[in-house]
């Protein structure tokens, strides 16, 4: 399977060509290149998948090594890919959904000036995403992991002239880096723990073979640290804050990166590490708890959003929470299955919302929409299919995957997770249909100019919608528990998770109970849709009791509504507790550096100069003063004595005569 290198290389090629000469090419060529490489990558992925299926189930784990990437001493990491059912499924999702979104983008972004730059980034993103899922060791995964983060940053801030867009990009980057902080530490703790056992490696194969020898306490730390990384990338509490803001990016980007692929990387990573997490079920419980809490928490915020994309963003956070709940309780197959169906229906809904925004001339506020069904039937019908799927209505794909998660949680005895999951499912159905009713039914609330321009999107946009709608509708088929041995998805994925799921549970045994559970979750979903219809669907409104009207609810639960509407003030709290103190501390450090350390330096300089000055003065007045005073003394003395030397002959004669007289007197008297 050496040809798998083509899968990531093709998008990279597209990115390079468009990045280097894209600005000079016509838009049609740019779009064609970007889409063609994706199509080719998709075809190669299908071939890979097919080849993998030809192998017997137990041998479906092929490592293809290309070259030794970083090697030195005992540390050695290859640029190598692992093809197994999990990665094969992931590359199909990434290239398949990715291809559709590329096609959609050719329509959606057609009028943008920087079309080539957009296509370059999008291709580049797919490249890194494929590296992430294909890597056969943690370091290649990390390469992809950081790369998708970078592309996400670039694409969120694609319209960088807007301050809000560049802020959102920065926030996404930094929050992801906080996650990576945990991720990389976990990685090296793992590496060193294995090194101590004489098996230092970052290859999945070696790691998973030796991982049970590591001290469980260390394993717990490793598991938690890796999960910090996953929580950053997959927007879990408390690191979810970047995802709603990431909606600043173009809508197809939200569909591809912030719904279908990148944000699921954390789920993929936990699933990939099932051998690790199955050894530490208590960490799994933490993951599941964080996941299900995130699911509920995000759903509550989704209830009151008015921005069509924000609703989908919170819903994405919520659905990711579901996936973590699944992988946390050890239901890796169910988690990955939901990852796949979510990629279909959430990708679909984001693209659908993009189609709506496109028609509305950039308007995103649902309060100014309404009645769009009559103007854009394809968008409307496909969107509703997506909503039905996410609301868990049979036979749409979301029903099967969500139900499987709830069922597995229930079956494994996590009743709280099951109950919260069920509640969240009801809320999801509610806000999704709130969105459907507000957008597509009733009177159009837009201004006349916008109304006049309402139109269905071009076929480059509607065809991807239709394909994704079909997938959302029937994509659950591989998850229908028809067979004795479990679902097709399970059969396929099980070899990967054989470390993780100790017993291959057979669905048939629990058939009766599972059917009841299915009924319960469908009933909850229907209740959610019904409640939403009473509030927002015109023909139903007249049946609603007086307290069940949007305004009435908002006014009777004023505080709660404001809390939800302002997203629990989490951003403000983070600013207040983390961001601003750090900024202040940085400023303080700077003043310390200039005011204390550099002050000492300058003080030393000043002190030296002071000493120099003092020495100078000392030299002049004391040392030289002494020398000079000597001379002064001599001068002074001589100035006295020199008076004797008058130079007048008479004076000398006088002194001479006086002297002679004194001598004579002395002699005469003596």
């Amino acid at each position, binding site marked *: 399977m050496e040809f798998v290198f083509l899968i990531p290389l093709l998008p990279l090629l597209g990115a390079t060509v468009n990045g280097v000469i894209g600005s000079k090419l016509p838009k049609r060529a740019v779009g064609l290149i970007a889409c063609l490489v994706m199509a080719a990558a998709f075809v190669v992925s299908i071939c890979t998948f097919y080849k993998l299926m030809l192998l017997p189930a137990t041998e479906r784990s092929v490592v293809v090594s290309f070259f030794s990437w970083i090697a030195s001493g005992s*540390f050695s990491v290859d640029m190598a890919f692992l093809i197994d059912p999990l990665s094969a499924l992931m590359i199909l999702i990434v290239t398949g959904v990715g291809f559709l979104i590329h096609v959609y983008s050719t329509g959606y972004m057609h009028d943008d000036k920087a079309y080539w730059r957009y296509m370059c980034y999008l291709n580049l993103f797919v490249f890194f995403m494929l590296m992430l899922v294909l890597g056969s060791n943690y370091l290649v995964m990390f390469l992809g992991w950081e790369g998708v983060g970078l592309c996400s940053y670039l694409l969120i801030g694609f319209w960088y002239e807007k301050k809000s867009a560049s802020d959102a990009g920065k926030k996404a980057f930094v929050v992801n880096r906080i996650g990576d902080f945990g991720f990389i530490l976990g990685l090296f703790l793992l590496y060193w723990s294995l090194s101590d056992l004489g098996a230092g490696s970052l290859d999945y194969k070696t790691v998973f073979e030796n991982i049970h020898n590591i001290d469980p306490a260390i394993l717990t730390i490793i598991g938690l640290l890796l999960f910090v990384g996953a929580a950053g990338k997959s927007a879990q509490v408390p690191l979810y804050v970047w995802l709603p803001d990431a909606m600043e990016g173009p809508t197809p980007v939200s569909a591809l990166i912030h719904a279908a692929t990148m944000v699921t990387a954390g789920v993929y990573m936990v699933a990939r590490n099932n051998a690790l997490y199955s050894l530490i079920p208590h960490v799994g419980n933490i993951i599941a708890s964080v996941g299900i809490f995130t699911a509920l928490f995000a759903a509550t915020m989704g209830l009151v959003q008015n921005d069509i994309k924000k609703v989908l963003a919170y819903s994405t956070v919520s659905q990711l929470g579901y996936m973590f709940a699944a992988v946390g309780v050890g239901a890796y197959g169910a988690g990955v299955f939901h990852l796949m169906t979510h990629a279909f229906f959430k990708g679909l809904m984001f693209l659908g919302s993009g189609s709506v925004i496109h028609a509305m001339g950039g308007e995103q506020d649902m309060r100014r929409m309404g009645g769009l069904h009559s103007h854009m039937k394809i968008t409307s019908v496909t969107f509703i299919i997506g909503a039905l799927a996410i609301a868990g209505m049979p036979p749409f794909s979301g029903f099967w995957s969500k139900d499987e998660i709830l069922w597995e949680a229930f079956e494994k005895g996590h009743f709280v997770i099951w109950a919260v999951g069920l509640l969240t499912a009801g809320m999801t159905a509610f806000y999704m249909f709130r969105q459907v009713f507000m957008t597509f039914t009733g009177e159009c609330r837009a201004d006349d100019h916008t109304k006049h321009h309402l139109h269905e999107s071009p076929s480059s946009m509607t065809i991807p919608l239709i394909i994704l709608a079909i997938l959302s509708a029937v994509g659950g088929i591989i998850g229908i528990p028809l067979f004795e041995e479990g679902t097709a998805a399970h059969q396929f994925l099980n070899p990967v998770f054989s470390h993780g799921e100790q017993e291959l549970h057979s669905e048939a045994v629990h058939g009766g109970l599972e059917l009841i559970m299915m009924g319960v979750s469908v009933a909850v979903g229907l209740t959610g849709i019904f409640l939403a219809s009473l509030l927002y669907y015109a023909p139903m409104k007249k049946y609603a009791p007086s307290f069940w009207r949007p305004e009435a609810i908002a006014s009777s639960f004023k505080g709660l509504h404001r809390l939800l509407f302002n997203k629990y003030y989490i951003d403000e709290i983070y600013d207040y507790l983390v961001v601003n103190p750090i900024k202040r501390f940085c400023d303080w450090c700077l003043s310390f550096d200039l005011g204390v350390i550099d002050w000492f330096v300058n003080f030393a300089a000043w002190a030296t100069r002071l000493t120099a000055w003092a020495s100078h003065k000392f030299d002049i007045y004391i040392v030289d003063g002494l020398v000079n005073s000597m001379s002064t003394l001599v001068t002074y003395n001589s100035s006295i004595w020199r008076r004797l030397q008058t130079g007048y002959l008479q004076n000398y004669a006088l002194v001479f005569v006086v002297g002679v007289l004194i001598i004579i007197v002395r002699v005469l008297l003596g």
Partner: protein
Amino acid sequence: MTGLTGFPILSTIAFLPALGALVIILFYKKDWIDLIKWTALGTSVATFAVSLYLPLTFDMADPGLQWVEKTVWIERFGISYYMGVDGISLLLVLLTTFMTIICILASWREINTKLKGYMALFLLTETFSLGIFMAMDLFLFYVFWEAVLIPMVFIIGIWGGARKFYSAIKFFIFTFAGSLFMLLGILAVYFYHGKVTGVYTFDSTILSLAPVAPAVQFWVFIAFFLGFAVKVPMFPLHTWLPDAHTDAPTAGSIVLAAVLLKLGTYAFVRFTLPMLPNASMLFAPLMIGVSLFAIIYGALVTIAQKDIKKLIAYSSVSHMGFVMLGIFVFNIEGLKGSVLQMLNHGISTGALFLLVGMIYERTHTRTIGDYTGLFKELPVYGVFFLIVVLSSMGLPTTNGFVGELFILIGAFKAHWVYAVFVAFGVLLGAVYLIWLFQRVFLGNFHYAGGHGLKDLGLREIIETAPLIILIFWIGLYPKPFLNVMDASLTKLVEQVETNYRKGNGEVIPPQASLGAAVVERKVE
């Protein structure tokens, strides 16, 4: 002791720039500007070309010095002209010859006054820096070490910015004061070694074979530390750096960051570790503590900067903290990471200064607040800047990642707490760099000057492109770079260990010191 055998390739490389400088000085006519420029460029390119002979003939399996040149200089003091390059210094030599070309290109338009002196001084800086990386005799090393100060001080002081005299003098006095202590340390080693063994020599390979008593090492370490740490620079001896960087001309900043900052860390690896193993071990906790502090503190101070050049300068304090940490965790991974990161820091930070210089040439302001939205007006420049920023923050596929990876591995091996600091430093690095990028490049185009700006020209692209290529080369295929240093660093780690035990008075069985003996014979 043999004289010069074979062609003195190292001396040729080291003194070729000086020869070029001499030629430039002889151009007596003032309007021979182009001739001066092209001579300088030609000299630097020729030097680089000759230095490429080294990697082509380098024997990776040989941990010892290669292309050795040794001849007696002052016999009665045991001073020799002793040059040699091994896997530790090879990359730094290449970095120096390579970056000098970039520096001369970067000065093409920027320097308009006294060009002759400028180019001559620049080439002299190259000669002296190369001398430092090649000299294996401590006295010779000291001579180069002091000599390199002179051209650099003049470059800052004459062609510098607003506070050039202050910065030049600060730089000079800081470094000079440090080197005096270093000289004391060198003399102490010389005399103690002479007293014990009867061999009075400045030959560092001989001095490294039998380290002086631990009690002496203690003081010598402090003396060496004061000399080397100023150059790194280590907290709290770092405050000359932001000033020198800010006021130096672009090429001055590049050579400061890329080459001069490496002198300190290189000297720690080359001399402190093997010659003072016991003191190094003793001081290691302190050194690690200071390095970790510098990583975090440097990054925090960087976040608060308002001037682009100052920001990059302060980021060096943090980045060099990584390098120092890698050296003092005493394992092969950390050391490898450090030596590679010296190279990486030279490339990435050098490239950052180069790019900042380009925009300064256009707008004459470096205040972050004076710009927004440059990306729109200067897309090529923006892409280059982004790539370099990403490399500086250590994103995978870039050089910074590989270096930080090894330092992280080494740090983790020593203690997990170190790794937490390193990872946190990497996180903060992302904060200040991505914030810088946002403030300068994103948003609506505006800068204080008003009129439009031209995107990079051909010369500027040619200057930057090689650095970008290196960034990805080291990031994607670091193997050749790692292989070069592998044998020498492995030997160094062994030597430090053996010397440490020798210093503690253990008797080393002959097999253990076999490696060292082989080297000795080679030198003889």
